[in-house]
């Protein structure tokens, strides 16, 4: 398990900020729209230039291109590749990683089952329901067993019941795989369901650090309850 450390990370949107996520811990980044939450995730993923340092498991990520960071990233718009089946969406990162065909097939089957989307393996993303697409995108983000998982408003487009079910499953799955996670959301209930603690960003500044708050709509108990 790898911990994440941000030291003086900043760009045109974000004021310099420090943040530490312990190995295996999930931290939610809360804040209003336009506060810089997604910018922070893109910086960690290597998609935006920035000042300061990003360290993962003690190793320097700063300056590394995104494909060499060993990070899983799932955004709100998912971007499953429409020309590939669900299974082939998962095969692709393993091909880039250089796994042979047998190892790829085993890993894809295992990950599809973990995310309960194995029954849709041969379908194209366009034919899936909203919840199934979220599961497929999550499976793709996890298939390389990343050291760090970045979730950007992962379940924003789903109805309340489906979101609640997915929160429970994702939280259990992340803990089972021991993956460190940084989760962007504007929903305190989602932060409480998915994260061990939360921080808040407003106007590009990390203003507060809190334990996840309880909410009537929470679907899993949090540590403070």
């Amino acid at each position, binding site marked *: 398990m790898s911990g994440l450390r941000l030291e003086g990370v900043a760009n045109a949107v974000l004021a310099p900020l420090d943040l530490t996520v312990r190995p295996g811990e999930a931290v939610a980044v809360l804040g209003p729209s336009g506060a810089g939450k997604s910018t922070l995730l893109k910086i960690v993923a290597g998609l935006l230039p920035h000042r300061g340092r990003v360290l993962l498991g003690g190793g320097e990520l700063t300056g590394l291109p995104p*494909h060499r960071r060993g990070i*899983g*990233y799932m955004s709100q718009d998912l*971007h499953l590749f*429409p020309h590939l089946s669900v299974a082939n969406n998962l095969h*692709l990162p393993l091909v880039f990683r250089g796994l042979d065909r047998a190892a790829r097939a085993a890993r894809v089957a295992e990950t599809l089952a973990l995310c309960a989307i194995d029954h849709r393996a041969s379908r194209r993303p366009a034919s899936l329901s909203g919840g199934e697409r979220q599961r497929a995108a999550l499976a793709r983000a996890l298939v*390389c067993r990343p050291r760090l998982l970045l979730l950007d408003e992962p379940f924003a487009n789903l109805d309340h019941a489906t979101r609640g079910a997915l929160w429970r499953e994702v939280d259990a799955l992340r803990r089972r795989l021991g993956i460190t996670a940084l989760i962007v959301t504007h929903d305190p209930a989602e932060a409480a369901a998915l994260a061990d603690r939360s921080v808040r960003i407003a106007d590009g500044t990390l203003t507060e650090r809190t334990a996840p708050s309880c909410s009537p709509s929470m679907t899993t108990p949090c540590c403070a309850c």
Partner: protein
Amino acid sequence: MAEGPLLDAAMIETILLTLKLAGVTTVVLLLVGTPLAWWLSRAGGLWKEVVATIVALPIVLPPTVLGFYLLIAMGPNSPLTAILGRKLSFTFEGLVVGSVIYSLPFVVNPIRNAFEAMGPRPMEVAATLRASPLDAFFTVALPLALPGLFTGAILGFAHTVGEFGVILMIGGGIPGETKVLSVTIFDYVETLQWDKAHVLAGGMLAMSFAVILAMLLVERRLNRARQ
């Protein structure tokens, strides 16, 4: 209508030469046009606009103007001839070069539009999935831009088949070497062989209709497959 076979040997030779020119030109156009379209869809600044303008010039230039400059560039006293050691004017290779330049905007623009419509996100997502920029281009960008590539290839092929002015300027009408369909039809009309002109012109009309219809149907199928 004159008696005899519908197509004589000279007409068949012309049709085959035209198809060979259009086929070779389309392959070269895709090889040159795809990276150019990618660069135009991603680059910024003044250079991009300058290059885009040069690519688009054949759309507005009279074919005779383009043909005139190409004739000079490929002629016996040009620097290009000195470098290559032989002139390209009035050769099949010269026709390919001229056709590529003349049809470039018809291939580059649909591919560029497809890349631009894709936006930056699929490439970013591919990068987070461990794809190097080259991997992402071949496994994500190209498949997503496939309808644009297909449209560009069809337009490039059809435009080359129908080309006349540039061909006449840089290739003349050497049978078996540069005498393509459009030039042959012009010759038949000039020598009042209207029956033969009808056969070739009618064939080109039918082929153009079939090509455009096929393009629209395949495009519709590709788009449906993704929805």
